[in-house]
Structure formats: structure tokens, C-alpha cells
């Protein structure tokens, strides 16, 4: 086993373990804090694919902005009342059975499948790093999805303002 495999298994195990911990913690703040190493290590997996740009984005957006948002959401919730309650009531066994069936299916099918290998962006695009490769397809072949993304962000802006503005008005009045 080379250094590379060791590194890969390190990243993979940390991701799975912290994700499991994040799901299983009763206290939401702990859950979010376990998500942090999970997201950082996913950036490590991007590096395995030579996707430096995506790794950087992963750190900037997820571990930077989205973690802050998660923490704010938790601060907005009234945690004192909800830490003691069990959220899932009777459906726990059903959920565990369904989840296990899904995991078994995913693992079995993934092991049984053969992957043709990584498909990079077209060769004429790649001259320089991953950033150029991403941009090279994003602003030419995927121009339409790119412009659509701006509309999705606009909807998110509307949503944030429409849904979050109510309480601020109530508290002020």
C-alpha cells in the first residue's frame, strides 16, 4: 500500500466517521462542529482528482460560509427546549431498516460495477490548471446552466428576504 492509498483511506475514513458523528449527536452544535472536519476532508478528496479549484471552493464556501450559516441557524433556534427531546419517535426501526437496505444495495452495486475511468474536460481546454479547465467548460459548453445559476441565486435572495423579514418586523413593532 503506497502513501497515496494510505492518504486516501485516511480522508475516506475521517469523512465517514465525522459524518456519522454529525448525524448521531443529540446536540446540534456538536453535530455542526463534526461537519467541519468532514467538509475539510472532502476538499482533500478533490485534490486526489487534481481539482484544486474545487478544493479551494469547498473550503471557501462550505467550511467558510455555509458553516457560519449553520451555526447562525442553530443560534436562532431555541436550543434549551429541544436538546432534551427525542426527534424521531416510532419510525426509528423502519428508518434503520430502510437505510441499511439502501446502504447494502449501494455497496453491492458499486462493488459489482466497473468504472471506465476518469473523464477530464476536453484536452483543448486544459492548458494550465484546474481553474482554467473548470472555467473553460463553464463559460462555453455550460453557458446556459451558468446563467441559470444566477436565477437560482436570485430566487434564494427573494426567499431569504421574504421568509426571514417577518420576525424582524414583529420584534421591532
Amino acid at each position, binding site marked *: 500500500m503506497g*502513501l*497515496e492509498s494510505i*492518504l*486516501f483511506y485516511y480522508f475516506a475514513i475521517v469523512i465517514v466517521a465525522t459524518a456519522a458523528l454529525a448525524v448521531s449527536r443529540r446536540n446540534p452544535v456538536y453535530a455542526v462542529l463534526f461537519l467541519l472536519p468532514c467538509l475539510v476532508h472532502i476538499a482533500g478528496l478533490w*485534490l*486526489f*482528482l*487534481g481539482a484544486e*479549484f474545487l478544493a479551494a*471552493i469547498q473550503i*471557501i*464556501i462550505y467550511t*467558510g*460560509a*455555509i458553516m*457560519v*450559516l449553520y451555526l*447562525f*441557524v442553530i*443560534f*436562532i*433556534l*431555541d*436550543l*434549551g427546549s429541544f436538546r432534551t427531546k427525542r426527534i424521531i419517535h416510532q419510525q426509528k426501526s423502519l428508518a434503520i431498516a430502510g437505510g441499511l437496505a439502501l446502504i447494502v444495495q449501494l455497496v453491492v452495486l458499486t462493488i459489482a460495477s466497473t468504472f471506465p475511468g*476518469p473523464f*477530464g474536460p476536453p484536452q483543448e481546454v486544459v492548458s*494550465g490548471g484546474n*481553474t*482554467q479547465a*473548470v*472555467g*473553460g467548460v*463553464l*463559460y462555453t459548453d455550460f*453557458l446556459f446552466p*451558468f*446563467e441559470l*445559476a*444566477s*436565477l437560482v*441565486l*436570485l430566487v*434564494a*435572495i*427573494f426567499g*431569504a*428576504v421574504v421568509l*426571514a*423579514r417577518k*420576525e*424582524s418586523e414583529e*420584534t*421591532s413593532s
Partner: protein
Amino acid sequence: MQESAILGYLPILIFFALAVAIGGGMVVVSTFLGRKNPNPEKISTYECGMVPFKDARQRFDVRFYLVAMLFILFDIEVVFLYPWAVLFTRFDPVIFGFVEMLLFIFVLLFGYIYVLRKGALDWS
């Protein structure tokens, strides 16, 4: 080439390992070697300054959430700008590359003006 991409980051990995070793080492060493004579005043949360008077786990104003949400949205916008700036001179009719980003920014600028106009960032 694909396979060895990660090995280029070996120096950074070693750097991380050193950082953890030094930082963690200091804590470990001081736990073993340091002198400990605790008293109630010393182990209180704030040894000097204000006396804590209330549970810190209170609800925050929802406006924090709004600001964080808007921050993410415009953060993502900036992320889209970065590879575009790197590639700018290589777009074939450069003006098209310019226009496509102009459209993208226009939509989000509209969103920004909307946010300002709605007073979502007012803090009074």
C-alpha cells in the same frame, strides 16, 4: 499524472503534521510538567471582568441569519467570477465573454438592489 496529483501536496501535509505536533505537544507537555494549584477563583470562566449573569444560549436575532444567507449567495457569485477572470483574454470574441458575465452580474445586482430597497440590511 492524475494518480500522483495528491503527492504534490506532500509538503503541505508535512506542514500540517508539524503544526499539529507542535501545537498538541505544547498542550501535552504543559499538562505533564506544569504546576497546578487550582482555586475556585482561578478556574472560573472569566477570572477578571464581568461576572456571568445569564445563560449564553439565548436566541439570536433572525437578521443574523439573513446576513449570513446573503453573504453565501454573493460569495458564490464571486466564486463564479474567479475562473472567468483567469480565462478572460482567451474568450474568442472577448466581448461575448464580457457580456455573459455582465448578464450574470446584472441578475445578482438586481437581487442586491432588491435587498437594499427592502431594508433587509437595516439594523435599527
